[in-house]
């Protein structure tokens, strides 16, 4: 079990530590700055913080001593002449996710950004380069922003069996897969629906809010999409809808999905009301859990606010570590569970809006 949690929040990086009485805030870094994603590279123990200063732009910091000191490294930069569309220069606006490379790639890191660039580092983050095959994918001119001004990459999944096999999730475009280390990419959105498009089954234009992989069964993928919840058991070749009707459970809209690393049939989501509102369903917060690949879902509410609650959870706002789960909401509440989500305890009720939660 991991004894720390990194919270990327609207007002800085907040560190939680586990003690006999549960989780407590034990540290804060970059106070006042948006920390859009914070994560530990478990290969090295190095902490990473992705910042968005508002005025001064995006920044990237790393720490080799668990936050005692930080080093700013050059943030990824689009090459001269890069354009989002004709006449519109590309500039890094948001660092959405940082993901370590696969086995045999000890110094490789990936960064997903807005406006849609995947950046790669092969020197442990000291320098970054735009991954051109995906940036130059023929579909990219038709990518568009969902909730953000431009398209962005928020999910990067590296197959533990094969470092050259990678998925990315793009809002809005869909899921893309490479099996050759990025030389070529193909959309993997069959079975998904984009109800906001003239053609809901369009191959490009889907909005996967987050995509998760079962580490021990990497062909099993989960997706909390703008238009439902999906699962694939064949590495994205085909997605099956696992949303439920309103009278069954609130499993439909939301942002986050977390997969159990061992059980390919087990995952958690935190439902919300549609894109038009983005609030807790019936003003009551719940976590939904499946043990059978999404055929049925249990809805857990014990310990979560069930009245006058407007909280929802962003796409990186829930993490799983063994029997422990922890999530933070868009309105700054945090909750933990020691029993795989069945019951919850409030951790800190008045934090800044939480963008990311990662055990460290």
């Amino acid at each position, binding site marked *: 079990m991991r004894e720390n949690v990194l919270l990327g929040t609207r007002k800085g990086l907040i560190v939680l530590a586990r003690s006999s009485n549960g989780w407590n805030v034990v540290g804060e870094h970059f106070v006042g700055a948006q920390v859009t994603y914070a994560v530990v590279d478990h290969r090295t123990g190095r902490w990473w913080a992705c910042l968005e200063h508002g005025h*001064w732009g995006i920044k990237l910091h790393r720490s080799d001593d668990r936050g005692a000191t930080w080093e700013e490294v050059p943030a990824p930069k689009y090459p001269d002449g890069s354009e989002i569309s004709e006449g519109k220069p*590309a500039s890094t606006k948001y660092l959405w996710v940082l993901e370590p490379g696969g086995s045999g790639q000890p110094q490789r890191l990936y960064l997903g950004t807005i406006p849609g660039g995947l950046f790669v580092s092969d020197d442990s983050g000291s320098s970054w380069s735009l991954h051109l095959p995906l940036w130059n994918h023929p579909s990219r001119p038709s990518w568009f922003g969902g909730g953000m001004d431009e398209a962005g990459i928020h999910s990067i999944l590296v197959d533990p069996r094969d470092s050259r096999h990678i998925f990315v999730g793009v809002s809005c475009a869909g899921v893309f897969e490479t099996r050759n280390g990025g030389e070529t990419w193909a959309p993997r959105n069959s079975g998904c629906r984009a109800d906001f498009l003239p053609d809901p089954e369009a191959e490009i234009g889907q909005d996967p809010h987050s995509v998760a992989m079962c580490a021990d069964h990497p062909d099993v993928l989960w997706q909390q999409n703008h238009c439902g919840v999906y699962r694939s058991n064949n590495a994205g070749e085909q997605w099956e809808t696992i949303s439920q009707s309103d009278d069954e459970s609130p499993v439909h809209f939301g942002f986050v999905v977390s997969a159990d690393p061992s059980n390919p049939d087990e995952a958690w989501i935190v439902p919300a009301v549609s894109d038009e509102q983005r609030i807790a369903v019936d003003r009551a917060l719940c976590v939904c859990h499946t043990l059978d690949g999404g055929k049925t879902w249990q809805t857990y509410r014990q310990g979560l606010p069930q009245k006058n609650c407007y909280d929802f959870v962003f796409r990186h706002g829930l993490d799983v570590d063994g029997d422990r789960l922890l999530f933070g909401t868009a309105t700054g509440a945090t909750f933990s569970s020691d029993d795989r989500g069945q019951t919850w305890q409030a951790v800190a009720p008045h934090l800044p809006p939480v963008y990311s939660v990662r055990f460290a």
Partner: protein
Amino acid sequence: MPTVRVAQHLAHQFPIPRKCVAKGRTVAEVIADLERQYPGVSRYLLEDHAALRQHVNVFIGEKPVADRNGLSDPVSEDVDLFIMQALSGG
């Protein structure tokens, strides 16, 4: 050389003195010299394509910079150049 005065907000985020000097005949040249003296600072001021960041402002004396993309505004030897966060940034 022009005197450069930097907003406290920036000096809190990046190790640069509130007041320094930098040579250059245009805003672009002054920022290039600041980058030479304080490596990394230009990424706080400029977008990837070297335009002034949307929520950063530069005043040449009392006059706001006009060419936010090319930063070609002339800068005289005895002028104060102010770098600050724009109110548009919230």
